[in-house]
C-alpha cells in the first residue's frame, strides 16, 4: 500500500504574550491508503492542533514553524491559500466534534452540500443534489432527497453528525480527519456511527485519522494508534499490541486508569499529578514528573525509537514482556 499522507517533524507553535506554546512539537507519522489511524491523548496533548495543522486550519497566533506534510506527495506546509483551499474538502476533509457549530443554521442541508460541491468546480444543481442525496442515504439518513430541504435544527445531534460525515465524503477525499466526532453523542448513537464509519472507510478506500480521548472507541476502530502527550507522540504501533503491551508508562497509566481495567470497587491505578502546562514544560521527557520510572536519564528528551512493530519515546520502555506473558 502506498502512503497517502506523510507527516514529518511537524511543529505547530502558538506565539502568545505569555510565551511560546508548543502545542505540537515534532510529530511524525504516515498514513496508508484506506488505513484508520487513531490519535489518542488527553486535553492539551496537541491531538486536535495536529488535525487542524493537516488541513492548514491553524489560526494566528499559531503557525506551523517546522516540518512537512505531504498529501499524495504534495507539500502542504508553506503552500498558498489557494492551493490549500483546492485541497481542503476534495483531497482531505475534516469532521469536527460539534456538528451544531459546523453546519450553517440559516441554510438548508441541501444548500450547504451544493456549496461544498460548487467550491471544487461547476456542477449542476440537479447533479449536486443527486450526489448529496446518495451520500446522505449512505450515512444512514432515510428519505434523503426530501431531507435536503430541511434545516440543521430539524435534525438531532446524531443526525447532524451524519450530515457532517456525508459532507466530508462528498468528494471522496483521500484522507478524512475526524476530531472527536462521537464525543457529544449518546453511546447508542455513537455505536451506530462507529459501525457506519467502519463500513464507509472499507467501501470507499478513504484513509481516516480518528482523534479521540477515548481509548475504547479508538481501539474498536483504528488499526494503528498514536498516543500523544504534551505535543509529542510518546508511543505508536498496531492498536491491539500497543494496548496489550504498552511500552510507555503514560500509555500504561492511561489503560490502567480506565474503570473497566479493575474489578468493581477496587481503587484504579492512577497517574499522579496533572498534565503540565505547555508554557512550562520540564526539560527532557515531559512525562518525567508524573512517571514512576523517571530517573536522571529522563532529563534528556527521548526520541521515538522502534521496538518491534511499535515505537516508543522513553528511556525506560518496558512492561511489554510481562503483559505478553499474561496474554499467552
Amino acid at each position, binding site marked *: 500500500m502506498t502512503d497517502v499522507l506523510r507527516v514529518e517533524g511537524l511543529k505547530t507553535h502558538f506565539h502568545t504574550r505569555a510565551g511560546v506554546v508548543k502545542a505540537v512539537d515534532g510529530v511524525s507519522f504516515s498514513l496508508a491508503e484506506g488505513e484508520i489511524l487513531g490519535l489518542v491523548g*488527553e*486535553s492539551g496533548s496537541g491531538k486536535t492542533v495536529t488535525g487542524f495543522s493537516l488541513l492548514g486550519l491553524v489560526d494566528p497566533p499559531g503557525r506551523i514553524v517546522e516540518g512537512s506534510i505531504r498529501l499524495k506527495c504534495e507539500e502542504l506546509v508553506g503552500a498558498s491559500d489557494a492551493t490549500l483551499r483546492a485541497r481542503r474538502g476534495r483531497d482531505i476533509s475534516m469532521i469536527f466534534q460539534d456538528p451544531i457549530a459546523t453546519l450553517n443554521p440559516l441554510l438548508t442541508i441541501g444548500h450547504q452540500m451544493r456549496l461544498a460541491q460548487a467550491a471544487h468546480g461547476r456542477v449542476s444543481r440537479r447533479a449536486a443534489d443527486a450526489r448529496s442525496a446518495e451520500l446522505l442515504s449512505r450515512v444512514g439518513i432515510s428519505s434523503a432527497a426530501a431531507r435536503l430541504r430541511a434545516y440543521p435544527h430539524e435534525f*438531532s445531534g*446524531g*443526525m447532524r453528525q451524519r450530515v457532517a460525515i456525508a459532507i466530508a465524503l462528498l468528494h471522496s477525499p483521500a484522507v478524512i480527519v475526524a476530531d472527536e466526532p462521537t464525543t457529544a453523542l*449518546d*453511546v*447508542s*448513537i*455513537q*455505536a*451506530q456511527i*462507529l*459501525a457506519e464509519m*467502519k463500513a464507509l472507510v472499507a467501501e470507499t478506500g478513504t484513509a481516516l485519522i480518528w482523534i479521540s*480521548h*477515548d*481509548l*475504547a*472507541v479508538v*481501539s*474498536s*476502530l483504528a488499526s494503528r494508534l498514536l498516543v500523544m502527550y504534551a505535543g509529542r507522540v510518546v508511543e505508536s504501533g*498496531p*492498536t*491491539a*499490541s500497543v*494496548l*496489550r503491551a504498552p511500552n510507555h508508562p503514560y500509555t500504561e*497509566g*492511561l*489503560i*490502567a*486508569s*480506565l*474503570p*473497566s481495567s*479493575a474489578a*468493581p*470497587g477496587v*481503587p*484504579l*491505578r*492512577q*497517574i499522579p499529578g*496533572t*498534565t503540565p502546562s505547555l508554557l512550562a514544560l520540564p526539560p527532557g521527557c515531559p512525562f518525567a514528573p508524573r512517571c514512576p520510572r523517571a530517573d536522571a536519564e529522563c532529563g534528556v528528551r527521548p526520541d521515538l525509537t522502534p521496538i518491534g512493530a511499535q515505537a516508543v519515546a522513553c528511556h525506560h520502555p518496558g512492561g511489554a514482556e510481562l503483559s505478553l506473558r499474561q*496474554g499467552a
Partner: protein
Amino acid sequence: MSAFLTIDGVSKVFRPNLTMGERIAARLGSDVEQRLLVAVDTVSLSVAEGETLGLVGESGCGKSTLGRLAAGILAPDAGSVRLGDRPIMEGESKVTTRVQTVFQDPFASLDPRMKVGQAVGEGPLAHGLTTRSEVKSYVESWFARVGLDPEQADRYPHQFSGGQRQRIAIARALAMQPDLLICDEPVASLDVSIQAQILNLFLELRRDLGLTCLFISHDLSVVRHVSDRMAVMYLGRIVEIGPAAEIFDRPAHPYTQALLESVPRLVLDDGELVTFVPIEGEIPSALSPPSGCHFSPRCPIAEDRCSVEVPTLEPFPGAERKCACHLAERRALAASSDAWLP
C-alpha cells in the same frame, strides 16, 4: 437493610414555553395545546444505608431530573421523597441539609468571585456545623481530606484545574456532613487520568465516611465500578433495577442489553473482529413518547401489546432485581434453559 432514601411514585412534568406562533394563535382565540414534558414518570426506588445506587441512561432520560428531585432542588409534581422517615421537601422548599450534591461541571458550580475556602465554609457556618472562630481549621481539614493543599483555601476557582475544582466541589458537599450524597456526572468532564483520581477519592471517602450515594452517570463502566446496585432509565421511567454485577452479566431488559452492547470495549487482539450491535433509531422526543412501552419502537423483540400496555416494574424471575418488560418472564425462562431469544 432498611431503606434510607425512599423515592415513592415521584413524577416531574415540565411545561415548555409556547413558541411565538403558538402565543399569537392563543391570543387570537384558538385552542393551543400546552405541551407536557414528562421528565420523570412515577418512579419508585429506594437506597439502603451505606449503599451506592448507580443511575444510568442516555441524555434526556430524566436521570438528572430524578437526581434533582432526590436532592430537594426540584419539587415533585406527584409522589414523595423521604430520607429515613422524614421528607426532604415540604411544599416547595427543602427542609434538610442531610442531602448534598456534586454537580457535573466544576467550572459552573463554583462562584468565580468567591474564594474556594469561603465557598466550602459558607454552608457549615450558616447551619451551625462550625463556629466563626473555627471555620478556617474546619475548612482546612476538609481540604486535606479531599487531597488538596489546605494553603490553597484563599484562592479563587480559576486558579485550579478541572480535577482540583471537582475536589473542591466534593469538599463543599461533604463539609455539610450529609447522610446522602448525590453525584450528578461528577467525572464526565474530566480526562481519563484525572477521572481515575476522582473515582479513587470517591471510593475512599465512601468507605471512610460510610456515605450513602446516588451516583448518576451516562458512562456504564464508571457506574459499574462504583455502584452496588444500579437503575437504568429510559424516557422518564426505570426499566431495570437491581444489583450492578447481575445486570451487567445478564441484562433482563432489551434496552439494558442493547445499551451494554453499544459500549465500546478495549480491543486487545489483533485479529479480533469488532462488531457493533447498535440499537436501531434514536431516542424519541420526550414531548411525544411512544405509547405503551417507550422502548417498543426500537425494541428487537417487541410484540403487539408492547405498543399498547405500559409494562410495570416487576420482579424478574430467578434474580434479585426488577424489570419493566412484558417479555421479561419469557426471556428469563429462555435464559435458564440456556437458549437466547432472537
